[in-house]
Structures are given as C-alpha cells and as structure tokens.
C-alpha cells in the first residue's frame, strides 16, 4: 500500500524552483523527510495537503489525488506546523477540542478524543491551564495532539523537534515512533538532522534543491552511515581506557572512523571518544563485549547525529549509485542539476 506517491512533481515560483521533478513512493510507517532549509520540504507538505497546486506532475495521498480531492485528504490527514501556532490565552483542552470540531468531530466525540489524545502525548493536569504558561516541550505536544485528535491515517509533522533540548528531543522522537507502532498512524516527519531521523524512521527520504537525493529504508542507511560514539572510563589496569579499547576493537576487526577513531573537532570531550563505524547489529555486540572484557565502564555508546551536510560530503559514491537506481537523480556532488 502506498501512503504518499508523487510523480515528477514540480513547483516553480517566478524566481525559484521549489520542487524539481520529484518522484516518491512512500509506504506506511514512519518516514523521515530530510533536507536543508529551503530544500522544498514545506512546499511538498503544502502540495500534499492540496493547498497549493503543483506546477506539473501528480501527487496522491492515501490514494486521493491532491489536485481534486484536497478536502477528503485533509479530513484523513493531520498536520503539525513548524512554527508556533497556539493561542496563549486558552487551555490545551479547549484548543484541541475546537480543532477536533474543525476536523468534523461531533462535540462529545471531540471532547473524548481530546482527553485521550492529550494523555497519549503526555499532558495531564496542566492541560486545563492556559497554553501561554507551557514550556516549549509541552507546546510541541499540544501541536502534535491537535494533529492527531481526529485519528488521521497519516500525520505530516514539520520539524517537530525544533527548539527542544536533547531530552525533549528524545521524548518527542519516542512519541513519534509510538504514533505509528501504538496508534497505527503513518507519519511523515521532516527534519534537517539526519541522525535523529535514522533512529525513529523506517524509511528516510533526502531531498535537496527540490529534487530527490536519496530514498532508502533506514536499515540501508544505517549500513552506510552510522557512526557510533563510544566513551569509556579509565581503570587501574587500563589507565587510558580509551586507548585500550581502541586496540581491542582494532584487534576485533572493527573499523574506526577518522584519525585512529578520534575526532578532535567533532564532539565535546574529544580525545576520550572513539568513533566506531557500525556495519550492523553485531558491531554493537563487539563494542559491548570488548568494553566488558577490559573491565571498563561504558559511559556512552550513541549514534552520532549527522547533519545533512555530512551526507553530501561523505556519501557521494553510494548516493550516486542509489540515486541512479531510483531513476530520479540528476544531481552530482553539489546537489544541483548539471544540464
């Protein structure tokens, strides 16, 4: 089943081309849409909601044509905008009830669904207080709740982690994951951070300059791009734990990234962080076993967050191959057309 399908979709404004012959085929699940600012993410969302006509090409959402069945699409789809969109003087409950009614839910159902949805996104007693006093994280939850309140088949989330601190970011990503796994709602989530989407999404689509750069399932992605940042403690037997682990890992045949696995400029605490190239699930096991074998404490083992720019810089060769097979890529290194 296809949730979103576009076929050489283009959107041109007098001075810029926002989308350039974009062909996508997105199935159910959580799909990440990654692109730098101005890559065409928001334009794509507008077209998918049937609010902005495409210059050429076709698009369908849940099997409905965006050009002719926009209203039917908007009844079945939820949308969470990137920017602030909440009035400060009403409570989350009142606001979400109103939005549920705007989606066509009868009054009683609107109230019930609002209570359910706010609880699912993690808002409890505070939902009766005016939104003006909420933290950024709580506001993002209200924004998510209004997109989910009418039980859509698909939600479009525009930069849902914007402005959140690392903890809030992780909570939001976990919530997004649950929207699919627990609620059975497909998700299209945009971000300019590839790393955070890798962990949340089943499928990642990278667009740049309005054209498809890459579209693949996250497992494919992980094979190629994942770098693990590993930090360990020192112990009496291994005064330099980091160095001991490096030797152990190299001995175990694990590839390290950068100069001896140390990326001086990359992360805080550089010099104590090993960057390990993860080739699959087994790499995690090797790291775990090596650390345990040396008797060191594992401070952290996390996937490094890639900025989209890193994909452009380091992924040239595999990307060109993927793009060519996807039949939609005309772009080379700079991500621009060359004809």
């Amino acid at each position: 089943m296809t949730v979103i399908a576009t076929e050489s979709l283009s959107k041109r404004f007098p001075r810029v081309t926002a989308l350039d012959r974009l062909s996508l085929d997105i199935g159910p699940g959580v799909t990440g849409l990654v692109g730098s600012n101005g890559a065409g993410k928001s334009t794509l969302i507008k077209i998918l909601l049937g609010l902005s006509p495409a210059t050429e090409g076709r698009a369908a959402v849940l099997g409905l044509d965006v050009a002719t069945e926009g209203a039917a699409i908007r009844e079945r789809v939820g949308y969470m905008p990137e920017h602030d969109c909440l009035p400060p003087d009403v409570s989350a409950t009142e606001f979400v009830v109103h939005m549920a009614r705007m989606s066509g839910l009868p009054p009683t159902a609107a109230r019930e669904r609002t209570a359910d949805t706010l609880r699912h996104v993690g808002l409890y007693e505070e939902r009766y207080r005016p939104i003006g006093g909420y933290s950024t994280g709580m506001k993002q939850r209200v924004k998510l709740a209004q997109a989910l309140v009418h039980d859509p088949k698909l939600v479009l989330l525009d930069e849902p982690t914007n402005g959140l601190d690392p903890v809030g970011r992780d909570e939001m990503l976990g919530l997004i994951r649950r929207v699919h796994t627990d609620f059975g709602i497909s998700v299209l989530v945009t971000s300019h951070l590839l790393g955070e989407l890798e962990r949340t999404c089943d499928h990642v689509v990278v667009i740049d300059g309005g054209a498809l750069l890459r579209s693949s399932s996250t497992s494919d992605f992980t094979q190629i791009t994942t770098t693990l940042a590993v930090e360990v403690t020192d112990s009496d037997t291994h005064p330099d734990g980091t160095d001991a682990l490096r030797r152990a890992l190299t001995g175990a045949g694990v590839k390290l990234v950068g100069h001896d696995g140390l990326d001086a400029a990359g992360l805080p605490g550089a010099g104590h962080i090993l960057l390990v190239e993860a080739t699959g699930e087994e790499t995690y096991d090797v790291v775990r076993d090596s650390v345990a074998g040396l008797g060191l404490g594992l401070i952290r083992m996390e996937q490094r967050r890639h900025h989209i720019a890193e994909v452009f810089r380091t992924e040239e060769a595999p990307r060109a191959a993927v793009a060519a097979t996807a039949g939609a890529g005309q772009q080379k290194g700079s991500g621009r057309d060359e004809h």
Partner: protein
Amino acid sequence: MSTETGTVAGNDTSRIHNIGYRSYDGVRLGRAYARRSLYSQTLRGSFGLGRSAKSKVLPMLLCGVMCLVSLILVAVAIATPGMTKLPIKYTDFAIYLQAVIGLFIASQAPQAVSRDLRFKSVPLYFSRPIERVDYVLAKFAAMTSALLILTGLPLVILFVGALLAKFDFADQAKGFGQGMVSVALLSVLFAGLGLVVAALTPRRGFGVAAVIAVLTITYGAVSTVQAIAWQTDSAGAITWLGLFSPITLIDGVQTAFLGATSAFPGGDGPGAAAGVVYLLVVLALVAGSYAVLMRRYRRVGL
C-alpha cells in the same frame, strides 16, 4: 500507554486498565459542520463565553449598558401617565448609542480575527476540511450576529415594554420591524468594516485602536463638516456628506426607507432617490469587506 483507574465495587483496591490507543470510527461531519462550529465559537467568543473571566467583562458590560438604557426608556414610558408611545423611535436607539456599538466592534473584531493571525493558528484551520471561504463566512456571520444581538436585544426590550404599556400594537410592531431591519443592516456593515480593519492588523491593540479610529474619526469629520454646511446654509451638501461615515450611512438609509428621523443637522435626511445611493454604498461596502477578507486570507494560508 494510557491507564484508567476504576474502583471495583465492594472492595477498596483500584484496578488499572490499560486501554491503549483507541481509534475513532464515529462520524465525521465535514465542512458544513466545521463552519457552523467556527461560527458558534466566534459568536460565543464575542461575548466572552468560553473565554477567560476577564474577557467577559467588556462585552457583557456593553451589552448591559444597551439593555439598561432600553429598560429605563420602558420604565419612563410606563411610569409617565398619558403617554401613547415610547420616548424615542426604535430606529433612533442605535444612533444614540453608537459609541457603545463602536466600542463593542472595536474590542471584539480583533479577538475574532487578529488572534488567529497573530498566533499563526490560521494554517491549522486550512489544513482541515474547511476552506478560506468557510472561514471568512463563519467569522463574518458570527460578528454580524453578535452585533445584531447587541443592537436587537434592546429593541426587543423596548417592544415588549411598549406592549406592556398597552401602546397601539400595529404602530409599535411597524416601528419595531423598521428598527430591526435598520440594526440588521448596521450589524452587517459594522461587522464587515471591523473585521477588515482587524484582519489587516495582527496586533490586537492596534486593531482596537484602528477600528475605533475608522468609526469615530469618520463620524466626527462628517458631522463637523455637516454642521459647517448647515451654518453656511448649504443644506444640499449635508445629504451627500453623510455617505462618508458608517453611522451616517445607516442614518441615511433608515431616514429614506424606514421612517426614521434623521440625526443630520436640521433633521433633514436623504429622500428616496438619495436613499438608494446610500443603500448602494452600504451594500458595496459590505461586498467590498468580504472581498478584502478573502484576499487577505489567500495570503496568510499555510
């Protein structure tokens, strides 16, 4: 995970039921229902209902003033022996209390439209089944209804009072009918102008000030120039000057067609021919307001 606690009958322990996510299989009432909901939410909101206690104060106070004045008039009519009709005409009421009506539209039009613009909630509406035309129509109709309640309620009180005082029914019913038509026209016109001004200024404070300015400055200017015209014996100009402010427009229309006594200097409002021009200007302003609002929301969509 959601949890729900329920006490099992007959013993003190509570049980936690994990009911998980429930999908919604009920009816979806669609666009027309959403439009009606937006209408009623805006209408209730203009009287502060469903909003904070603070925001109820001003609209309720203004509505109270309108009703109080009409109650006093009724009391006077009933208490004074030998009266055969109300102290004022139904059509005069809104003209006398125009400042109250002006304050009401100035305070409530911005709350109806500026909030959604300022806090950027508009995209949330347009990502739902309703469209621009539904949004504009719902807001326009709600504001008109709010004004109609504000201006019509005192007339109803006057009419009921007149009947209690046993004034001539046919006479009173005719005057009441004319008054209601007049305030209906006034409501549409003021709602249109108020919403346009408010929709162009996302900041609520500016919106309030701008609406008051549009209503009072035009009225002040028109009545001043009319007074000068009256003093200088150019009575012909008075008629046409009335076209340039909302309240004198209504005055002109009701003088020409609804048996009102004009508040223009000399009490000499437009005749039937000039009255048609007045009516056309009113209708053009209403249509123009609608067009401007539609244009405005095309630009602030998603």
